[in-house]
């Protein structure tokens, strides 16, 4: 019987495991991918410092190595069953069944599938990318930046809130991080393509974290990025492969049309499919936004409606990396208290 089974080997899962291991508990991580680190593997730089994501990833890789954490890669959980004695049986895709005193769901988030917003042209028009695509492109950039149709961009637009705060997508909530990611990426693009005009079309700019507002100001004052408060209604492709955006500028109170070489859709965060599976197999309670419902938003955000089943990171909703790390540390303390009591 292991003390803690952690579902997910992203930053939240690794940090929870490291903290619990340091407190003397035996942990096992189950990760569906072939490597740890989750979405961070695909990220180039992090806000608000533009620090390479690889630094954080290397830190956690080293922490994992130092503690010799037990990790099952390429393994996904098929069910969580709470037994009568209060322990858990966790079934996996590998014919391995774990018995554990507690379980932590650190399975993170899925990115919104931008194809669902057909009017934005993702996977239809070549020069429409998502924020995640751009990060991958920047991560592997070698030489001059060019659009997918091999052009040095002269105009680039970022569209905020794609699949967030959007009734049509069924996502009423804010994904929190897309605003600051757009500002970060816009600055990055201006740095590597100084000739380009860059536009950000936003609903609100939710610069909630330390250093975010300053970065937003810098984007305007130093990098001359143009922020347009308004929604994109649709994208069309011109015969030359450039994109025509129809945007409502709600401050100027008029519609406008912008021709760009590349469009970046700031895709939001969604609850992963695995959460729905856990809901089904063990009666886990989810919020209307489909993320896991914390037992108490203020004083028990790591707890769920099931005793002994805990959360860490974005399985309860959108979070930045530093919020995720803090939430994972809190999860370790909460689990320690639970195991001490039981």
């Amino acid at each position, binding site marked *: 019987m292991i003390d803690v089974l952690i579902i997910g080997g992203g930053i939240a899962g690794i940090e929870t495991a490291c903290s619990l291991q340091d407190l003397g508990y035996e942990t096992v991580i189950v990760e569906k991918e072939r490597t740890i680190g989750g979405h961070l593997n695909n990220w180039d730089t992090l806000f608000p410092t533009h620090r390479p994501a690889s630094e954080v990833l290397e830190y956690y890789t080293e922490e994992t190595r130092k503690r010799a954490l037990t990790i099952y890669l390429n393994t996904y959980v098929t069910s969580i069953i709470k037994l009568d004695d209060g322990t858990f049986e966790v079934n996996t895709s590998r014919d391995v069944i774990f018995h554990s005193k507690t379980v932590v769901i650190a399975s993170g988030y899925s990115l919104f599938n931008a194809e669902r917003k*057909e*009017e934005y042209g993702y*996977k*239809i028009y*070549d020069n429409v990318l998502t924020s995640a695509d751009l990060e991958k492109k920047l991560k592997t950039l070698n030489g001059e930046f060019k659009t997918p149709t091999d052009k040095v961009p002269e105009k680039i637009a970022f569209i905020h809130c794609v699949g967030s705060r959007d009734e049509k997508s069924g996502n009423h909530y804010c994904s929190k991080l897309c605003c600051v990611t757009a500002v970060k990426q816009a600055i990055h693009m201006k740095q590597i393509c100084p000739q380009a005009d860059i536009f950000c079309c936003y609903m609100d700019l939710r610069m909630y974290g330390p250093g975010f507002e300053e970065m937003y100001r810098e984007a305007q004052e130093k990098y001359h990025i143009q922020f347009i408060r308004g929604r994109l209604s*649709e994208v*069309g*492709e011109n015969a030359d492969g450039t994109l*025509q955006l129809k945007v409502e500028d709600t401050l100027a109170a008029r519609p406008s049309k912008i021709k760009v070489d590349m469009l970046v859709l700031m895709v939001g965060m969604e609850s992963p499919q695995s959460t729905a599976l856990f809901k089904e197999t063990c009666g886990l309670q989810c919020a209307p936004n489909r993320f896991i419902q914390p037992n108490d938003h203020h004083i028990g955000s790591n707890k769920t409606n099931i005793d002994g089943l805990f959360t860490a990171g974005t399985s309860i909703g959108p979070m930045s990396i530093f919020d995720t790390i803090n939430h994972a540390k809190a999860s370790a303390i909460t689990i320690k208290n639970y195991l001490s009591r039981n």
Partner: protein
Amino acid sequence: MNTEAKKQIWSSYQKEIADNNYYYARSCIRQNFFPASEVTFLRILREELNKNIFDDPNHTTCTGIGYHSDIVPFDTIQTVVARHFALMTEAGLENVAISCVTSFGMYTEILDLWHHFPEQLEKIREYLYKATKREFNIPKNIAHTSDIIYKFRNEIAEKAKHKLINVQTGEPLNVVEHIGCHYAKMFPTKGVGGAEFPQVLSGMIESWGGNVVDYPERRHCCGFGFRNYLVQANRGYSVSNTKKKLESMKPYKPDFIVANCPGCAMFMDKWQYTLAEMEGVTYDEFGYGIPVLTYEEMAGLVLGYNPWDLGLQMHQVQCEPLLDKLGIKYDPKAKYLDKNGNQMPLPEKPSCLKV
């Protein structure tokens, strides 16, 4: 551009369309603009598809244009539409096939109103009874006639004499499709795909071998806009909207435009003449303009009907270059003969558009 992804998304938005036994609600303006389109629709349904459709001589205008021009009060148009439903009920039918998108929008709007405000329905029942002693049932299925052609597009394809393919090059014809706002925007769930995923015309084009043109102003207004045209002082606005669409589609070299709204087809056709006269511009390569068809005319050409029986000679932009591309034989001398073979007066030639 990956149009397959778009097609896939669009095809997931469908509506229920009755299979047979329709009460035909004719259009007042279509009979003037495209005089053979409605008779072609009846011919296709009866002769090609063996469907039962009742073309009722007692049917009248829905008064929709009057309503949208603030001339006809809402209670009046509701009572007129209620009378149409009474005629359908008396004919023993339950499905309405509506020719005009404005009528389609009106019928849909009125049914939605009655659904939410049943007391209004009772009031209109009373008005109709007092005026005509008629009673009515609510139709089970409301379809625009383009919905019905769309539903049977594959059956029509099986009977096709011509495909939407350029016989000289073997390439699919580039077709611009345009959906009427009263069909798609008022109650998006009542049309095939609403305004965002309107497969109704693109489905026909693809089934019949054509290539649908995706261009930046695809969803832009045709330029009619009722008040933009009906109020004379606003007509520049109407022309400028059509111009925006035509300029946007021009680089894609469309072989023709097809629309499911009388206003759209009318204005995208006639304003080409106006723009040619005003600015000396045409939107095709050779100065003829881009032909604009109704979906019945397009279906009729596919089925091998005589273009002059389809009324194509009544269009502003002449269709002969398109007929040549399709490999359709026609008699130029018969173009302006009436149904008895008598020569009709020939129209004046425009100064810029070639005919």
